[in-house]
């Protein structure tokens, strides 16, 4: 906390309010947005609990009627459940009696009961949230029970808006949220449709990490085409990345979502495009190339790598044959959980499944590439937490927020913060 911060706190207006009122430059980012608990609380409110859609899972995770999972939107636990009619409901995981988180298991099935029953006093909810039973409602032997004007009708588990997009499930707390397709917008939606193309999916497994950094640092990381060829020596060393490879930076009409689109390089190096990276070790070779044994899939088209950041909650990864959703679950201002769901298509043959699993060595908590992203995010947070007057620079490729046909730019970060400012302004 700088003396200025301190002084501010003594006034009537909080430091957070002042910062959010006055911050106008998306290319210069104040460290306080990563560390101020008041700003974080407002982010939860406006992004995760407000008029935005958040990722909650894949339909294939709930194959049968009665199957459910629990996950989080922001810090709030929600239940995702498949109703007998096949519909997916997303419900607040919060009993309306005394407010308890009534479901604990990450995955499960309600079985034949077709009900969620709160363990504490056994209030009984249908899978669409409706409250259908309250023990002793009419008392026992004429004694006690609920008052005459007590109505079950308003006491269901709160149901969220749900969008199922070819197998991907999103939800929103806001009843007035725009339709999901509009939320993505015309520039982003085609890329969503590219991966979630209606082909049935198969979950290959999960990775879960707790990363001690502010959640936005992960969004920035995947909107940053500047780092992969510099941080990820694996890409460079084994010739998988060049700064001059064909690529596009696309964002939605608000600048919040983005796609980093590129075609993997064929190997080799030259001074300009590796940025003179001195760790480039020409003599290193992979003994076993199976982690980079790529097979082109028909649905790719010309793009071999597409990283989608769907604000605020998820990244949709296609890195050649490795596919995953990466859910961002904020835990506190300086921490988030990062949940990877690797998947393929039901139609994959064994060789393709093996290929996806081999390539998974690049991703997740032990990933040759992704491990580094988690590390630098923690390095960032450590610094922001202590150099609180600090500022980050995002001026590569200029100071505007336009899409580009190259990757030598931080435009996607700027466009996200331009949107952020517009929503967070007091």
């Amino acid at each position, binding site marked *: 906390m700088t003396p200025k911060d301190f002084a501010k706190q003594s006034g009537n207006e909080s430091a957070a309010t002042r910062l959010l009122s006055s911050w106008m430059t998306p290319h210069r980012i104040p460290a306080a947005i990563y560390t101020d608990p008041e700003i974080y609380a407002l982010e939860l409110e406006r992004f995760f609990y407000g008029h935005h859609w958040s990722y909650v899972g894949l339909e294939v995770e709930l194959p049968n009627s009665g199957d459910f999972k629990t996950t989080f939107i922001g810090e709030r636990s929600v239940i995702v459940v498949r109703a007998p009619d096949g519909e997916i409901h997303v419900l607040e995981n919060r009993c309306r009696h005394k407010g308890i988180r009534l479901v604990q298991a990450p995955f499960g099935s309600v079985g034949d009961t077709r009900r969620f029953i709160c363990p504490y006093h056994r209030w009984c909810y249908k899978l669409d949230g409706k409250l259908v039973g309250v023990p002793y409602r009419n008392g026992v032997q004429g004694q006690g029970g609920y008052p005459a004007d007590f109505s079950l009708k308003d006491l269901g588990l709160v149901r969220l808006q749900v969008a199922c997009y070819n197998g991907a499930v999103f939800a929103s707390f806001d009843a007035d949220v725009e339709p999901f397709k509009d939320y993505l917008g015309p520039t982003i939606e085609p890329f969503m449709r590219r991966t979630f193309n209606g082909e049935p999916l198969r979950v290959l497994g999960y990775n879960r990490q707790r990363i001690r950094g502010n959640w936005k640092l992960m969004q920035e990381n995947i909107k940053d085409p500047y780092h992969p060829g510099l941080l990820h020596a694996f890409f460079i060393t084994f010739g998988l990345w060049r700064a001059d490879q064909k690529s596009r930076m696309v964002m939605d009409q608000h600048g919040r979502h983005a796609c980093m689109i590129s075609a993997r390089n064929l190997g080799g190096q030259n001074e300009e495009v590796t940025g003179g990276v001195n760790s480039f070790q020409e003599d290193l070779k992979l003994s076993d190339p199976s982690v980079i044994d790529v097979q082109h899939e028909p649905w790719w088209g010309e793009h071999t790598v597409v990283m989608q950041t769907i604000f605020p909650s998820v990244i949709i990864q296609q890195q050649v044959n490795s596919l995953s959703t990466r859910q961002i679950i904020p835990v506190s201002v300086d921490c988030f959980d990062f949940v990877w769901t690797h998947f393929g298509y039901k139609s994959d043959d064994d060789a393709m499944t093996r290929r996806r699993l*081999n390539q998974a060595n690049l991703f997740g908590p032990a990933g040759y590439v992704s491990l580094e992203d988690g590390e630098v995010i923690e390095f960032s947070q450590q610094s922001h937490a202590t150099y609180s007057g600090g500022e980050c620079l995002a001026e590569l490729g200029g100071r505007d927020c336009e899409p580009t046909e190259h990757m030598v730019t931080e435009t996607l970060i700027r466009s996200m913060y331009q949107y952020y400012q517009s929503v967070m302004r007091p």
Partner: protein
Amino acid sequence: MNVVEEGPGARIGYIIQRLALSDLYQAYADSLDRGDLERWPGFFTEDGSYRAQARENFDRGLPLAAMFCQGRGMFQDRVTVIAKVMVYAPRTTQHVVGMPRVIETGGGEIHARAQFCVYHTLPHEPTALLAVGRYEDRVVEDIGGRLRFRERTAVYDTLLLPNSLVYPL
């Protein structure tokens, strides 16, 4: 206990093998903890495989592993990438591994199991838990009579890993 009672010689052989098994497990942990990463592939047979896999995947039959090697080449690549390629905060690990138990013997393989907890220490920070879990192993007597893993799966309970898994479990 699957001791086939065939006289003291066989019984001694059995015992010696149990101690050798314990030594294998401890040496494996020790070489990781002291940073002798280069020795890691040598604990496996040439065609051996390794997985560090979340228990939720293991239990539900989902094939994904956070770390996966099959065949000496992939082991050596993992070592190279850890030692020479990746960027991460330096750290030390410390395993504590229970005495391995023989679950089953057959086909020249020992199916063994042991429980582990692993701590890591990062610069300027207190030691913290990295992961707990169990090893599900297939051990064979390799060339020269040395015990090696044909298959080792480190099934970790710790669903939420504390950020990075730099070294094998």
